[in-house]
């Protein structure tokens, strides 16, 4: 059974020139799998992720014909109902951990706070927090537990952030460029953590990224977005058989270590793609 059902999702922002639709009718379903959403800046991929969690920034509005998470209609939930879902059953990892962790609170305390709001005792919370830090491959969980976010390196911070999002064992994790600020070698480690969580816990993962190659090597299924629409959906393994010229263009324009194509093929954007 599918975990998430999205039908005809639209996100609109008012501008001086009238309303601008940044997500224009996106539909997909998600099981307990890794789904990648790929697109360039302005494609609406991040707004899609945010809209699912009801986090469309003011003054934007999100509408959908259907937006269901595990049988719960997400449209028009009250702030109170959202609190019961966000952080507990669905979570989000952002690009930069520095903006998502509280800078004046030790990491461990923040983790414990999440657990405590979900009804754990102090000792339980502390134990679970340390376990979680260990689970995201932090070698010295006691030190990180006491550390403040600015004392952590980028990779550590991102792992602490992921621990934070996973501490309540969500069913759905939306990861928006979770590794873009990280170095390639750390990137792979973070992906490994996410991968394990999907396989061991049966979590559903939406992985939003601009990096087509990374997404296709990591996810089961890929949605390619362009100008607020999904232009192509395909199995990650079938990427080389992509049919849409935009997907093909995105793949081709990347320089390769082995290739020596000069000049690199560039993308000629066709107006019809946006229709």
């Amino acid at each position, binding site marked *: 059974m599918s975990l998430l059902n999205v039908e005809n999702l639209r996100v609109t922002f008012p501008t001086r020139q009238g309303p601008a639709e940044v997500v224009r009718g996106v539909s997909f379903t998600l099981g307990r799998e890794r789904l990648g959403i790929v697109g360039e800046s302005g494609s609406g991929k991040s707004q899609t992720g945010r809209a699912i969690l009801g986090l469309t920034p003011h003054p934007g509005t999100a509408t959908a014909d259907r937006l269901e998470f595990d049988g719960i209609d997400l449209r028009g939930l009250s702030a109170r109902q959202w609190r019961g879902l966000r952080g507990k059953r669905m979570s989000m990892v952002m690009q930069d951990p520095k903006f998502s962790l509280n800078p004046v609170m030790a990491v461990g305390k923040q983790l414990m706070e999440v657990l405590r709001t979900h009804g754990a005792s102090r000792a339980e919370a502390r134990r679970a927090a340390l376990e979680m830090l260990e689970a995201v491959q932090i070698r010295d969980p006691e030190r990180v537990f006491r550390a403040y976010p600015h004392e952590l390196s980028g990779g550590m911070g991102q792992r602490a952030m992921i621990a934070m999002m996973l501490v309540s064992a969500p069913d759905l994790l939306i990861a928006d460029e979770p590794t873009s600020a990280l170095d390639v070698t750390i990137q792979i480690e973070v992906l490994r953590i996410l991968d*394990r969580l999907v396989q061991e816990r049966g979590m559903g993962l939406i992985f939003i990224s601009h990096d087509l190659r990374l997404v296709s090597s990591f996810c089961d299924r890929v949605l390619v977005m362009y100008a607020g629409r999904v232009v192509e959906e395909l199995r990650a393994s079938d990427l080389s058989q992509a049919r849409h010229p935009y997907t093909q263009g995105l793949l081709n324009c990347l320089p390769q270590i082995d290739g020596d194509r000069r000049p690199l093929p560039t993308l000629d954007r066709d107006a019809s793609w946006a229709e």
Partner: protein
Amino acid sequence: MLDVKDLEVTFTRGVEQVHAVRGVTFRVEKGESYGIVGESGSGKSTVLRAICGLAPTSGGEIAFEGSPLPTPRDAAFYRRVQMVFQDPYASLHPRHTVDSVLSEPLAIQGFDDRENRIERALEEVGLGQGFRFRYPHQLSGGQRQRVAVARALILEPEILLLDEPTSALDASIQAEVLNLLDRLRVERGLTYILVSHDLAVVSHMCERLLVMQHGQAVEELARDALRARAARTDYTRRLLQASVGYSREDAA
């Protein structure tokens, strides 16, 4: 053409001393494109900044055509060595039009024939005259980076230092900017030093590359050796592997 020998850069932050570059040596020949690859904190960008005098050198020597560079760098140096920065959103003054961005270096260095030079520079980077009086907020990321390239080239330098010139851009725009840099190099016989975290970009652009980690040079490779995966150190091999993407086998 450019000799960097045992370069050391130390920053002082309060009482703390950060040793950003620890003894890096390399040599760039005229007309060559030289890459420096590393992860954040490897000191790769600091090497570039040290070359152009934006970071203080605490040891070693940088020589340009055989003679050591004066500190602070003189105006003549900046006429021959220019830099393109990583973030096109941060490298253009938000209140200056493209026109004033391009005319300022000409005014500082006392060039004549400014009108024609500005027009030519815009054509060369593939921006028409229609862009001349725009403000940065009226330009896309790729267009901004083209302006930054035009600004660096308008003084007709011989060496261009490129600090992650495409890492803030979308993939399709990256291809356009890389092609532009490629073409300009051939047309003008420029020498490039390109810093990037992306092995594929460096392999595409550079004949030789230096891998850096923790402020030190790990190894120097020719492009062919990179393509043959003939890395001599574990670190380079790890970088090579990571650049392929994620693989399930890693997880096991």
